[in-house]
C-alpha cells in the first residue's frame, strides 16, 4: 500500500488530501472538502490532466497577442506538444471569446479557443 498527499487544484480551497492507495485503487482518503477532491485524486493516479492557457499572434488588433486556452484538460505529458501547435497559430482581428483557434488539438479532444474579444484596429 502507498500513501501520498495531494494538493487539489480544482478550486482555490486547495485541499490537502491524504490518500492511501494501491495501483489506481484508493483505500482511504482524507482532507478533501468535497467529492471533486476524490475525482481529482482518482484522475491524478490514473491519468493526470491539465488545461493550459497561452497566447497566439494576432494581426490587425491593438495588441500583437491574443489570449487562448483549452476547452478540456489534456494529459500532462502532452502539454508541450500542444504548446508547439499554439506557437504556430496565427489570428487576424476581429476575434471573440470562444472562437476556435485549433480544433481537437493534437487529437486530444480539446480545442484551443480565444479568451479575449479583440476588435480590428481602424
Amino acid at each position, binding site marked *: 500500500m502507498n500513501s501520498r498527499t495531494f494538493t487539489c487544484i480544482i478550486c482555490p480551497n486547495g485541499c490537502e488530501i491524504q490518500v492511501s492507495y494501491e495501483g489506481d485503487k484508493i483505500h482511504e482518503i482524507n482532507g478533501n472538502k468535497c467529492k471533486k477532491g476524490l475525482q481529482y485524486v482518482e484522475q491524478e493516479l490514473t491519468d493526470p490532466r491539465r488545461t493550459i492557457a497561452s497566447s497566439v*499572434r494576432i494581426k490587425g488588433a491593438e495588441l500583437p*497577442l491574443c489570449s487562448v486556452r483549452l476547452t478540456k484538460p489534456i494529459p500532462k505529458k502532452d502539454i508541450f506538444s500542444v504548446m508547439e501547435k499554439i506557437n504556430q497559430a496565427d489570428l487576424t482581428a476581429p476575434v471573440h471569446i470562444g472562437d476556435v483557434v485549433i480544433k481537437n488539438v493534437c487529437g486530444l479532444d480539446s480545442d484551443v479557443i480565444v479568451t479575449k474579444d479583440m476588435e480590428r484596429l481602424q
Partner: protein
Amino acid sequence: MEKLYDVAIIGGGVIGSAVARELSRYQLKICVLEKELDVCNGASGRNTGLLHSGILSGDHKLRTECCLEGNAEFDQVAEELDVPFRRSGKLIVGFGEEEKLCLEKLYEHGLQCKVPGIRMIGADEIKKIEPNADGETAIYVPSAGILCPYTYAIALAENAAQNGVHYHFDQEVTGIEKGADGNYKISTVKSHWTARWVINCAGLFAYRISSMLGFGTYIPQRVKGEYEILDKKAGKFLSIPIYPAPSENGDCDIHITPTVDGNVLVGPTLKEIGDEIDYSATQEKIDEMMIQGARLFPKHVKREYFIRNYTGIFPYVVDPVTMQRVDFQIQSDPHISHAVNLVGISTPGLTSALPIARRVVVKVLEQEDLLPNPAFNPIRKGIIRFADQTDEEKARLIGEDPDYGEIYCRCECVTKAEIKQAVHNILGVSTVSGIKYRTRATMGRCQGGYCETRLTSMIEQELHRDAKDILLNQNGAYMFVGKVK
C-alpha cells in the same frame, strides 16, 4: 567616418557638456565623444545634486574658487537652461563637544574663503530652520542649493547641441595620436575621429586620457558612495539638506538631502575603492544609512519609504609622488599644443562645471584667436512637465496636443506627449533610462510597474527598433531576448 573637427571633447558628462556649451559661443566645429549611451551615466548622474557653497572644498584653491563662482551665478544658469533648482541653504550639524569644535574650525575656514552668509547656530535655531532636523550645533550655509544633476548635464548638452555641437555616443577612446599635420587622431571602440584640439573631460577615466595626451600621470583613488532614494512622503518633512560634521579628511559622510522633485536622498556612504569601478549596493552600507540617516532626520528614514538605491563614484585622483588628493587640474602645456587636460574634477564638479568650462576657454584663447558665434543662444528649454502646470495650463496643453491627455507614468504624472519628446531628444539618446532622466517616468514609487511597458513600446514604434535592441541604459543591457511568439 573621418571628419575634421576643430575641437573634440572627450567625455560628455556635466564638465564635457559645459565645456562644449561654452566653446559653442565661438565659431568652432565641435564634437563630444562619450563612452556611454547618454550624458549622465557616470558621475554626473550619480551624485547628491547639491549646489555647493565652497565651505567643504578644503584647502584646494581652484576647487574653492570655481565652486564659489558657480554657486553665485547659478540662479541665472538655472533660468537660462531650464534646470530645476532651489536655493535651499544647508545645515552642517554636530552633536557633542568634539563635533562642535570641528564645526567651529570649519566655520572659520568658511569665513576665510568668503562663503557668503554663514552662521553658527544652536539647537533652537536648527529647529526653527528645519523642525525635523536634529543636532546641537550647526553651521547654517544659506548659499547652498539643490538642483537636478542629470537634468543639468542634459541641459548643458542640449544647449551645446542646439548651438551646433555634435554628440557621438558609444565612443570609448582607445588611443590618441598626433598626426604630422598637427591634428589629433582619436581612435574609439567604434570609430576614428580627427580634431585640431582635444579637451580631456573624461571624469572617472580622465587620468587615462591624461596619460594618452602626455600630461601628468595620476593614480585614481576613487571613492564609492551609496545612496537610498526615499518616497516623496518623506520629502514633505524636509526643506533643507542636513550634513554631519566632516571627518578628518574633510569628507562628509551620509547626509540627508531633499531633491528638487520632492524626494529625499540618504547618503552617500563613503568607501575608498582605488581604481575600481563598482556600482553595487551592499547590505552593510544600506544598514549604515538607516542608522546614520535616522540620527540626522529622525522618524522619516524608514524602510517603507525606500524607492531605489544608486551608487556614485567620486573621481578623485592622487599625485603619484605625494599620494595626496589633487586639486582641480585645468592644464595646458606648451609641449602639448592644442590640448586642455582636466583631472581631479570630483565634487563639487556639478557646481563648478561652468566656471571650469570658462577656464578651459581661456586656455584655448591663449593659443588661438576665436571668432564669436553670432548664432549662439544661451537659452535651452526643457520638456514642459505636465505635472507642474496649473489646471488651466494643463487644459491648454491638451488642447494643443492631445498626447498630454494620456498619462503614461502615473506616479510622476508624466504624459505621452512628454515621453514622445524625450524619445526624440536632440542628442539622439534612445535608452529606457534616457527617457527616464528626461521625463521622470519610472522614477516614482512603482518604479515603472505601470509605464515601462509603454516606454518600451514607444521606443519600438517611434524609433522603429526591434524589441530585442531596446536597451535599459548601456550596451549589453538588453531588456528582452526577443518575441514570445
